[in-house]
């Protein structure tokens, strides 16, 4: 059954999620608590409705589920369908898939809407930002797919040609970012600290994707069923 793929995807997502939850517990929670000290009045009005411990605990749990979600969706379902199309073998395939996943879920949208520390006021309405974010996710997926296709088409050519063709779709992102509407943000956090926070978020997500790719590689190749075997399995 295809469950062999799903199990491996879920397991790598769980391990990645546990690692990311640990990152959230040790770095994320305290970093955000520190950044909140810059806020004079909490922007949500009347302060948070849950206590700090709940927020910390649920956020760690959210991190674990975050990994599990990507593990099932990308390394379970995604790897099952895309395995024949991914270039290279073993770890290369997983790292390509992880890079494509990161670009789609976080990388491309962040170019337009970078991660913000708490207390930031954004000029654009929430709905507009959600639409922009979703749009950039589609762009990220298209760019990642184009990179892989360009690599496959030029793999037999000179290395420089392959590298140029594979990297070229990424330049498309820069054009789109320049075309995106003005996104003014005002916040109490100093610019250098905001930059440090953003890079912490970036490395956190990159770490999550890398962990999932490594664990998935380590689990080995799932067994692929044949069409006939699937009919047998469901006939019983």
């Amino acid at each position, binding site marked *: *059954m*295809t469950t062999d793929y799903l199990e491996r995807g879920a397991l790598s997502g769980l391990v990645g999620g546990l690692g990311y939850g640990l990152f*959230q517990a040790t770095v*994320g*929670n305290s*970093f*955000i*608590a520190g950044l909140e000290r810059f806020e004079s009045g909490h*922007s*949500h009005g009347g302060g*948070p*409705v*849950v206590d700090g411990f*709940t*927020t*910390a605990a*649920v*956020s*760690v749990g*959210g*991190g674990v*589920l*975050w990994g*599990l*979600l990507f593990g*099932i*969706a990308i390394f379970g*379902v995604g790897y*099952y*369908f*895309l*395995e*024949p*199309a991914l270039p290279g073998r073993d770890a290369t395939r997983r790292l390509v898939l992880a890079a494509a996943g990161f670009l789609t879920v*976080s990388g491309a*949208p*962040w170019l337009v*809407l970078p*991660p*913000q*520390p*708490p207390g930031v006021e954004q000029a654009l309405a*929430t709905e507009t*930002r*959600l639409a922009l*974010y979703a749009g950039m996710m589609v762009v990220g997926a298209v760019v990642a797919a184009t990179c892989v296709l360009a690599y496959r088409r030029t793999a037999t050519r000179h290395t420089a040609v392959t590298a140029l063709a594979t990297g070229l779709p990424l330049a498309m992102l820069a054009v789109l970012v320049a075309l995106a509407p003005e996104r003014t943000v005002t916040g109490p956090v100093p610019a250098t600290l905001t930059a440090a926070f*953003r890079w912490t*978020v*970036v490395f*956190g*997500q990159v770490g999550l994707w890398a962990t999932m790719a490594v664990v998935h590689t380590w689990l080995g*190749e799932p067994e*692929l*069923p*044949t*069409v006939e075997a*699937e*009919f047998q*399995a*469901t006939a019983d």
Partner: protein
Amino acid sequence: MQAEKDTVRHRVDIATSGLSGTQMMLGVALVAALGFTLLFVQDPMVHDSMHNFRHGAGVTCH
């Protein structure tokens, strides 16, 4: 693995022959529900509980 026949199209054939429509819809619904809860639910209690996670993961929440 059958190298010459293994394409994305082939994978889709295996999946559609082995899984019923209900199974597929159930899978998609579960993943969608989890994603929606983590990213978009703005209910004050959920929002504030998830606050650190959403900022930490760079989710555009509020």
